[in-house]
C-alpha cells in the first residue's frame, strides 16, 4: 500500500487485527503514518484528516482507512455511511474476514450463512451475509470495488484506479482467516480463490454509475462455469454443520447476487 500511494498515504486504522499486526509503539512495520482510532469512527477521523490537509494545501496526500468487517459493516456503519454520503475524499478499504477475528471469532453481519463462530457455536449463523459493497453503491459514491487476496494484481489495479479518482472510494477485500475459518494456513490463497470460483465472492467495480464485472468473475458468469459451493465449504471447518437447507440458502444467496450484478453491469 505504501508503494501504491508513493509515500503520500496516511493510514487510519480502527480496532481490528491490524491494530496488532503493525507492531508496538513507537515503531511501525508500515512505511507510512498510521493513526489508530476507536472502533466506530475510522471514516469520521479520515474525513477530518482529509479536510485539514485541504486547508493546509496538502491535497496530494491520500487518506486511506484500513478496517475489518466489524469496524465497517457493524459498529462503524453509521460513520461509514456518513462519510460516503458526504463524498468525503478518502479511500476506505474493508478487509473482510467475515467475523470478529481480533476478539476471537465472533459472528459479524458480514459472516456468511451457515458459518460456525464462537457466538454461533451449534447452529452456525442463520442469517445471510450483509452486502456492504451494495450498500456503498446505494450511496452513489464515485468508486466501489470488490477484491480478493487471491487476485493481488486485480486488487492492486483497483487500488491504483481508486487513487486517481477524487471523492469517496470503497474497496471490499475478501481475506480468509485460517484460524477463524478453520483451515490450514497453507490453503489461505486456495480458499480465497475458491470463493471466487464458486461465486461466493464476485469481483467487480462500480464506476460512474455502472458495474463492471472484473475478469476473474466475468468469465465464470458469462460461461456459467461456477464450481459447486460444496467445494468451497468442504475445505473450511467453519461450515462443518451446514445442512441441505442451509446449502440451498447459500446457493440462493449466490444466484441472487449474480442476478443483481448482471442487472447493473454494462
Amino acid at each position: 500500500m505504501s508503494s501504491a500511494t508513493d509515500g503520500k498515504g496516511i493510514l487510519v486504522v480502527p480496532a481490528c487485527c491490524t491494530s496488532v499486526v503493525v507492531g508496538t509503539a513507537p515503531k511501525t512495520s508500515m512505511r507510512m503514518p498510521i493513526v489508530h482510532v476507536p472502533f466506530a469512527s475510522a471514516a469520521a477521523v479520515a474525513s477530518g484528516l482529509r479536510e485539514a490537509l485541504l486547508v493546509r494545501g496538502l491535497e496530494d496526500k491520500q487518506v486511506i482507512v484500513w478496517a475489518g468487517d466489524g469496524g465497517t459493516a457493524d459498529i462503524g456503519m453509521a460513520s461509514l455511511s456518513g462519510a460516503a454520503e458526504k463524498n468525503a475524499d478518502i479511500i476506505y478499504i474493508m478487509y473482510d474476514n467475515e467475523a470478529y477475528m481480533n476478539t476471537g471469532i465472533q459472528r459479524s453481519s458480514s459472516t456468511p450463512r451457515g458459518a460456525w463462530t464462537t457466538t454461533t457455536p451449534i447452529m452456525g449463523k442463520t442469517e445471510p451475509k450483509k452486502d456492504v459493497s451494495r450498500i456503498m453503491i446505494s450511496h452513489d459514491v464515485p468508486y466501489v470495488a470488490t477484491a480478493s487476496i487471491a487476485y493481488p494484481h486485480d486488487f492492486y489495479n483497483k487500488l491504483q484506479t481508486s487513487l486517481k479518482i477524487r471523492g469517496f472510494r470503497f474497496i471490499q477485500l475478501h481475506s480468509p482467516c485460517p484460524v477463524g475459518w478453520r483451515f490450514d494456513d497453507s490453503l489461505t490463497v486456495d480458499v480465497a480463490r475458491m470463493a471466487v470460483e464458486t461465486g461466493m465472492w464476485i469481483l467487480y467495480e462500480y464506476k460512474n454509475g455502472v458495474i463492471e464485472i472484473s475478469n476473474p468473475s466475468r468469465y465464470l458468469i458469462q460461461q456459467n462455469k461456477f464450481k459447486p459451493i460444496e467445494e468451497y465449504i468442504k475445505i473450511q471447518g467453519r461450515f462443518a454443520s451446514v445442512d441441505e437447507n442451509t446449502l440451498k440458502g447459500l446457493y440462493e444467496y449466490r444466484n441472487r447476487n449474480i442476478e443483481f450484478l448482471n442487472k447493473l453491469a454494462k
Partner: protein
Amino acid sequence: MSTLELKKEKKVMTGNHAVAYAVKLSKAQIISAYPITPQTSIVEKLSEFIEKGEMNARIIKVESEHSALAAVYGAAIAGARAFTATSSHGLLYMHEWVHWFSRARIPAVMAVVSRTIGPPWNIWPDHSDFMDQRDSGWIMSYAMDNQEVFDLVIQAFKVSEDPSVYLPAMVGLEGFILGGTSMPVEIPEENSVLDFLGERRQPYSVADEIISVGNLTSPEETEQIQMGIQNAMGRAREVIKKVDEEFGRVFGRSYGGLASCYKCGDAKYVVVTMGAWSGDALGAIDLLRDNGIDAGLLRIRYVRPFPIEEVREALSNARLGIVFDRSLSFGGFGQLYSDIASSIIGSGTKKNLVNVISGLGGVNISSDDFVQAIKSIIESYESEGYVHPFLWYHQGEVMKYQHIKT
C-alpha cells in the same frame, strides 16, 4: 498591543453566539459538530460565517457527535486548529472520544452548552453533562456570563496549544441561561485574537512526519502517558494564570485564574459555586452582607485542573464552606464538594464543609433562594455547632439527606 490601542465593539449576543465569534476570531480551520438543543445555534452561526465568506474554515457536517469529535481529532492530528460543540446526550455519545483525545495529547477546543441528562427528556441546564467528563484529561473551564464565554473560548485555544500543556480544552456554559440569553459582549478587532494566540502549535502531526499514533504499547508506557497528563494538568495551573493575566493586558479583562473570589478575605462563611448561578450567588453575598453576615463567594472557573491552592486560600479563614453543586455523583457527593474536600485535607487544616445540591434539571435558583438556603444553614450551624454534610435545597426548603449519619 495594549488594551488602550485596541479597537473594540460591543454587541448584544447570546452565549452561543459569543462562542461562535470567539471561534471565528481564533481562526479555527476545521469545525465539526452534530446539532443538539441547546448547542445548535453555535454551529449554525459558524456555518453562516463560513458561507458568507467571513470565516476561512471548513465545516464537516457529520452524522453523530461521536463522529464529530472523531473528525475534529483527524483534523487536529493533521495540523489544523479545530473546534466542536455539543450538549448533554451528545457529549455522552462522544464520551469515548473525549478520553481518546486527551491521551493522544492533541490540542483542540470544545464548547459544552450544558443541559441535563434524560430521562425524562428535559432541555434545561444543570452541570451533570459537563461534570461527567471530569476524569477525561481535558482542561475544563466554566463561564459565568457571555463575556466570559467569549474570553474563555479564546483562552482555551491558548492554554490547549501551550507546549507545556498540549491537552484539549472544553468550555462550559449553561444552555438557555447563557447560551440562549442575550447580553452585551465586547468583541475586539479581527486580528488581535490571532496575534494573541499565535500560529497553531501541537506536539506532532501525521501530515508532516511518518509516525504511528495510538498503537499497542506496554503497560509501563501506558502508565507513563497517564502520569504525563496529570503532570501537564499541574503545569496548566500556571499557564492558565499567565494566559489570564496576558489576556487582561491585551483585552482589558482578567478573572483571577482558576477561581475568582468575592469578599472571601474576611468571610466567616465562604460559599462556593460554578457557572451562571454564580451571578445570583454574588447578589446573595451582598444581601447577606447587608444583613450583617460575613459571607464571601468562591467561584470555581476551572474544574480541571482543579484550583487546589485557591480553594485552600479562600477557605483558610472561614468557619464554614458551603458548596453548591448543580450536579451529583449519585451515591457520593456533588463533584465540586468532593474536590474541595480533597483539596482541604491535603492542606492539613480541619474545616467544616457542607454540600448543597440544588438546581438539578434546570430548576431555577434566584439570589433570594441562595440567601434563604445560606441563612438557614448558618443558623443551624451556629446554634447546633455542626451542620449535616449533605443537604438538598429543593423548592424553597433545605432538607437533610437521610442516609448519612452525623
